Structures are given as C-alpha cells and as structure tokens.
C-alpha cells in the first residue's frame, strides 16, 4: 500500500498545480458564501423560524445552493483521475510499474478525498462567524462535517469510476454528474412516496442523510451506506482497469 501513498502524493500535488483546482475552490467559496449570506439574512429577518434550525444546520445540505454546485463540482474534481492519464498516455507507465491496480485506484481515491477535505476548509469560516454571534454546539458541527465526509467518500469513488470508464475528462465529468444526479433525484423522490418505498429511497437520499447529520444526529446506517457505496465504487474502478488490460 506504500505505492498507493506515493501515487496519492503525486496526485494531490498535480491537483494543486492545475488551474482547475483553484477555479473550483474560488467558485465553491463564492457559492457557499452566497448561500451562507442568504441563510443568515433570512434567519435575521425571520427570527421566529428558529427552533432546531440555525443558519449552519440549514447550510449543511438543506438548500439547493448546497447540492446543485456539489453535484456539479464532485465529478469535475474526479474527472482527471484516470481520463486525463489515458488521454496523455501516462496511464501506460503507471500501469506497467510494479504496482497493483488496487494500489493505483486507492492512491487516486485518497488524493480525491484530500481535495474533498480541502474544499470544506473555507466553510469553517462560516462556523466561526456563527460562533461569534451566537451559540454553536461543537458536537453538531462535528457531526455535520462527518456527514459531509461520508458523502465525499462515495461521491469521490463514483466520480473516479466515471473517470475510469470515460475516454476523456469532459465525458468523465458529464457521466459522473449523471450518475450522482441520478442517485440524488432517486433520493429526494422519498418525499413523494410512502411506506417502504419512502424508507428505501430515504436510505439512498443524501438530502435526508445531511438533514440528520447537520442536526447532530449521527445515523450509523448512513455511514454504512457511504462506506458500502465507496467500496463498490473503488471495486468497480479496479474492475474497469483490469478489464481494460484485456480489451486493450
């Protein structure tokens, strides 16, 4: 697994020498800043809506301003992982080095998770702002970030899978967007269903997932789901690489 770390290190470095990382980060800070500003002003002008909600719980996953950019950004964050290497043929030296497919996939996956974590660092600013003007429960904040990390675990894995399947970066991003988007839509379909269907869809729903975590409710079922999906994404990416050795 040392090879995975070596690959992750190089991958992280190449993330941050590419302009795309900075474009994404700036856009992300702008959009989340806007979202946070709107939430704060809304709570300020509608003080009666308090209850268990505050700008931070709303911020973490309960507005479209959170999910729509994320659904667009996640595939862009992962699109280069394999598709760029295939396009520039650098996949060949990588895959003829004495390392396993699993090491390669885990290395790249790890790098994408690092990027995911970096993406959330600026949002700590909003936590800090809220903490200055009101009470915040650090446990709830920690749970929110745990939820976000859980979503990242499988968003990055499936984005990576899209990158391994696609022939170039653009296709990888579009494919990743459709796959994650399909899960998202399937998830929010819980609101128009009842009984068992609702329960199953709710289990898939990143919206409900984050609704729980942002209130400080750490539901282990969601974490099991995240880990299962992440493992499946990694496993399928390894299969795609192996299959490409056979199919050429």
């Amino acid at each position: 697994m040392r090879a995975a770390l070596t690959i992750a290190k190089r991958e992280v470095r190449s993330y941050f020498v590419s302009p795309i990382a900075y474009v994404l980060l700036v856009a992300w800070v702008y959009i989340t800043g806007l979202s946070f500003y709107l939430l704060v002003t809304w709570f300020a002008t509608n003080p009666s809506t308090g209850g268990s909600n505050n700008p931070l719980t709303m911020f973490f996953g309960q507005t479209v301003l959170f999910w729509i950019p994320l659904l667009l950004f996640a595939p862009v964050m992962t699109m280069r992982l394999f598709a760029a290497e295939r396009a520039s043929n650098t996949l060949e030296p990588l895959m003829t080095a004495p390392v396993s497919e699993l090491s390669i996939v885990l290395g790249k996956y790890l790098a994408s998770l690092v990027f995911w974590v970096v993406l959330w660092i600026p949002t700590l600013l909003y936590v800090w702002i809220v903490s200055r003007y009101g009470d915040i429960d650090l446990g709830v904040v920690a749970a929110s970030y745990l939820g976000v990390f859980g979503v990242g675990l499988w968003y990055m894995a499936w984005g990576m899978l899209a990158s391994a399947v696609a022939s170039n970066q653009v296709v990888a991003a579009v494919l990743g967007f459709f796959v994650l988007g399909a899960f998202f839509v399937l998830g929010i379909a819980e609101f128009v269903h009842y009984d068992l269907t609702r329960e199953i869809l709710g289990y898939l729903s990143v919206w409900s997932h984050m609704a729980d975590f942002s209130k400080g409710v750490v539901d282990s079922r969601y974490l099991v789901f995240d880990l299962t999906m992440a493992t499946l994404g990694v496993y399928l990416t390894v299969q795609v690489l192996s299959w490409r050795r056979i199919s050429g």
Partner: protein
Amino acid sequence: MGRSLSIACAPFSGGIVVARGTTTVYKPAQEDTVLEVADLTKNYGSRRAVDAISFRVRKGEIVGFLGPNGAGKSTTLRMITGFLAPSAGRIRVGEVDAVRDPIGARRQIGYMPEGVPLYPEMRVHEYLRYRGELKGIRGRGAIDAALERSLRSAQVEDVRDRIIGQLSKGYRQRVGLADALLADPPLLILDEPTSGLDPNQIRAIRALVRGFAGDKTILLSTHILPEVEALCGRVLIVHKGRLVGEGAPGELRGGRGGVRLLGRGELDSYRAVLEPFDASVKLRREGELVAAELHLEADDAVEEVFRAVAKAGLVLRELRPFKTSLEDVFAALTTDESERSGQSSGEEE
C-alpha cells in the same frame, strides 16, 4: 521493386527462421534466457493484432523488433510489460511467468513506452523520484543513489531541475530512458526510442543504447531499418501480427548480393556467359553498351563472373558488386503478394 521481388522468391537459408504460417516450437528455456515469448496472441474483438508470436531473448542481446506501423509491435511489447493481457500464449521474464505474476515480471523490466508519456508539470528529479518509489526502491538514500545513477546513464543530469513540459523532445526521450533504468532492471524494453527525434538526437539515443549493451538485455521496436543495423545483434521482423523473419542483420541479408556490369559486345553473348550464374539475369542495351544485373549466392562469385566474361573475350567498362540491403529483405517480408504485383488493395493495417 525488381530487386525485392527476386529476394522474395529466393529461399532463406542458414540460421533464419521464417515463421510465416507456421508455429515455431521452442525447446525449454535455457539459463541465459531473459525473455521468452511463446505463441503470444492478442485479439481485439474479431481482429487479431498479434498472432502466435514466439521468440527468445538471451542475456546481453540487443534485439530489434522490426515491422511496419500497425504490425503489432507495440501490442506485443505492451503484453510483455503487462499493460495489456494476452489473449493466449506465454511470457516468461527471467524466472517469472509474466501472465501469472505480472507485477513480479514488471519488476525486472525497464519500459519506455512509445512517445514517452511523462507528467509535464513535474520536474525531472521529482518525476524520477516518484517513479523510483513506485518501482519499490525503499529509503531516501537508495532512491537518491538510483536517481543519480540513472540521470548519469541517460545523460540528463543537466536538466534535473527543469520542468518536464519545457524540455525538448530529445531530452524527454532521455528522461524516459532514465526512468526505464531507475530500478536497474536486467531487461529494457524500448518502444520506438528514436521516433520523432532529429538526427543529432537520434545519434545521441543510439549511442546511449549501444552503451548499455552487455550490461542490459534490450528489446527495442522500430520501423527504421538503419537503426536495426546500427544497434541490434538480432532482428525479429513482424508483419500483420506474425513473426515473418528472424536473424542477425547480416544473416537476414544472407550475405547475398550481386553484381552490376556494363560492357561492350552483344547482348546474347553476355546472356550466354551470365546465365549460368543467375538464370534470371536482367540484361538491356544502353546505347553501345550492355548493362546487366545478376544476383549471386556467394561474395567471391564476383571474381568468377569477371573471369568468365574476360574468357569470352568481352570487354568490361564497369563491374560493380552490391549487397542486398536489409531494406530489401524487409520490403520482401512485409509486402503482401497483392501489393507486390502492383494490385495494392489499399488496405493499411
């Protein structure tokens, strides 16, 4: 065209395996065999890119893998290096079965893929350090030592701090070579190491490769014939996924050649004298003179020709021996019957 035609018709002899349409059966691997490939086959869907290729490379050899573009050279090399999985056949690198233990096999191979893909954003020493770690060189000291050694061997010490994307193609090629040399593997596989380089860069790369001779075993692919003559002790000629010829460059030429002569006299008297040497001698009038071209089996037969012509009382103005070039052999082996008879189907693989 005429020359290659007659060579195609001439049977090969003396230590050359012509494997067109046959499966070569090999004896068990000998101790000094670094690479053994047996009945290696690769299908892409219904298309067969590599068709039952078998060969062996001994320790210290420089073997040229020669063929027109699309002959299956890269596919074969990619199977040996594990980038592609074979559809059938066996590959043995040293003592390791490369199909069963591809990672073990890759440890013994330094591979430079076609076009030398590198990460343009990295610096040369960063890249090589990364590759060293990837190749399992453990410890900073060991990586530094390997880095210095390979920078020196590939003569890229002066660009070690440069960004790869800003290097010339010749330097990039040498960085690829440095990468192949990093883990000090016994077998180097170089896919078209000089393609796209200018003559000076080509000379530099060839000198480097020649310098590795003896120490390393090298399998390199090329479609450039002088390269093979300049570098390789042995040539494997592939065409349409099959091994169509194998031997030392000299052997492949077969020492065969011929003689062109120009002399005074009657065309028919020349025919009478020369036909015993080569039944298919070509004769034509050139003004007052007769020009003839004939192929000879042995080098010293040129003297016999001179003696015979003189004995017949014919006066020679010019007698010029020539050697069949490897180019002719290559053309003969890698041109289809239909193309040779001028009815090219226009289908390029």
